[in-house]
């Protein structure tokens, strides 16, 4: 894929990604927010593919769009959350400060990025980012975190079920 095409694809994903993320924080309706987030995750997966992270891209879709967002949708639908009970903070000042602070954070990070300057991506092998490559490092270098993840998931399932069952 040529450079121009790659740049074009980058923007094809980036513009909707930012729009969708803004949608999450701007909208009042939780369903719309959740759908924006789903859109954002799909665009992000596209960006991951551009970064030759194939496995992570589809893991992103599988786990985020397929599992976590289904969970969110379930909760929104089960609790029948309407707009009234959602509203934004009543303290408008908070919002202003929030926006200001975030712009500040962004400015700081952006300066740091500018300081490092635009780095060109190096060429990577055919194997980079594929299932097998990731599997290999998970099997060797990151073995302990890998096993720990299963413990984390075990704790999560127990904790979540206990909490959710409290008044069911």
């Amino acid at each position, binding site marked *: 894929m040529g450079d121009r*095409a790659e740049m074009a694809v980058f923007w094809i994903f980036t513009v909707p990604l930012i729009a969708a993320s803004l949608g999450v924080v701007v909208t009042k309706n939780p369903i719309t927010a959740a759908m924006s987030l789903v859109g954002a995750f799909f665009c992000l997966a596209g960006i991951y593919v551009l970064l030759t992270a194939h*496995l992570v891209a*589809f893991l992103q*879709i*599988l786990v985020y769009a397929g*599992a976590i967002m*289904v969970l969110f*949708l379930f909760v929104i*639908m089960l609790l029948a959350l309407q707009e009234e009970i959602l509203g934004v903070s009543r303290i408008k000042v908070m919002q202003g400060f929030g926006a200001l602070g975030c712009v500040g954070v962004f400015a700081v990070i952006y300066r740091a990025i500018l300081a490092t300057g635009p780095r060109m991506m190096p060429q990577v092998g055919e194997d980079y980012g594929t*299932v097998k490559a990731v599997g290999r490092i998970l099997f060797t270098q990151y073995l302990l975190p890998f096993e720990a993840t299963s413990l984390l998931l075990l704790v999560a399932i127990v904790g979540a079920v206990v909490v959710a069952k409290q008044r069911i």
Partner: protein
Amino acid sequence: MSALPTPAPARTKTPRLAAIVSVTAAIALPLGLFCVILFATPLLQPALLDGFIRERLHRDPATWYWRDGVYTVALLVLAFVFANFAAIFSGILSWWERRVAGRIQSRIGPNRAGVGGFLVWIADAVKLILKEDLVPAEADQMLFRAAPYFVMVGFILTFVVLPFGESIAVSDMNVGLFFITSITALVVVGILLSGWSSNSKWALFGGMRSAAQVVSYEIPAGLAIMVPVLMAGTLSMQGIIRAQGGLPWQWFIFRNPAAFALFFIFFTSQLAEANRTPFDLPEAESELVAGYLSEYSGFRFALFFLVEWGNLWTMSAIAVTIFLGGWQIPFVPNELYAQLKGTGFPPLAWWGLEAASMLVFAAKTMVLVNVVVWLRWTLPRIRVDQMMSLCWKYLVPVSFACFLFTLLWQIAVAAVPALETAMGVGLTAVSVVLAVLFARQTHRNITAIGDRVDLSNW
């Protein structure tokens, strides 16, 4: 079959034009679709496209400024071909299912539009396009309209990695099976949205049931998929097929007893994910009227239905790919394809072999499609709590056990390679015996009530 045959009503003769049109369509449409796929899929991929331009047009695309544009157009054309394949084939399958259902229920089935009612699905499509499109006033307008798109995209995307033949797959990604598992998410989101946005209680029931069902059965399906991955050592669909062979005992299903069990688990899970009987709870007509489809009408409804019947093909094709040897032709080694293809533009012999592999794949898939149809018109529907306990208490633990068994099995096979072949031959023989016994019992049941096997009157 009745003891008191009433004289058959005089057959109205199909008009000659309709007869010609329907027979032509019945032959030409599937044939044409497969031909287009056979030629378009390899030809529109960069490698062959470049080769074609270089050898036949004598230009060098590498120097073109708009080379990516050419590829993009090629991809869009390819996507269009597959979208049409999905739409037309699901239409044809809907007709086929209704005909088969007619035979199962000792009635005729659609027989008005064209010979054998073949044109009925076109009539249906035209009718659904011409129908008024209703959106309930109290529904969430935007999400109600958006839901079919989610389902449609989730369905069409399956064709990106779905193989049809040796070189006939749009894309052989290294994450192939993972891709298929992940895009199911789109369908779930679409169904949840359609159920919720309708603001109808029946739709909500259907949407909830469907989402719960699809996500639950994704676990046994995902575990079942892992076993072929373990055996093939790759996630790529084509890679998994290449790891198998053309003869039954070279298929994954027979090479490992756990895979044999998991094939049925996978098939059951796929039935559940496609909302087919006995897992048709989400649109259980006699309980939920039409489930999440209650408020949909016209073309939006048609989109959901297209996906439902299209799923028949995709679910069967996936099962064929990972368990039943895919497009592998008996006694044709994988190397032969590469040898025939050579380096330049492939010769006719290669195209012939590709066509044969496609035929094998389509034939296997159609067998499974018919099994799904057969099940639908035979079995009752299970209840929602039974659906859940079947999944979590039976399928998931058994899948886990099979998965762990396969881990051991792979170690054993690595030590004694003959084990796999022996198991393959043994399980194939067992399956043949079981099939024969089943056929005998069926024949006995048919003759016991004085019926006979009658395949006439199609």
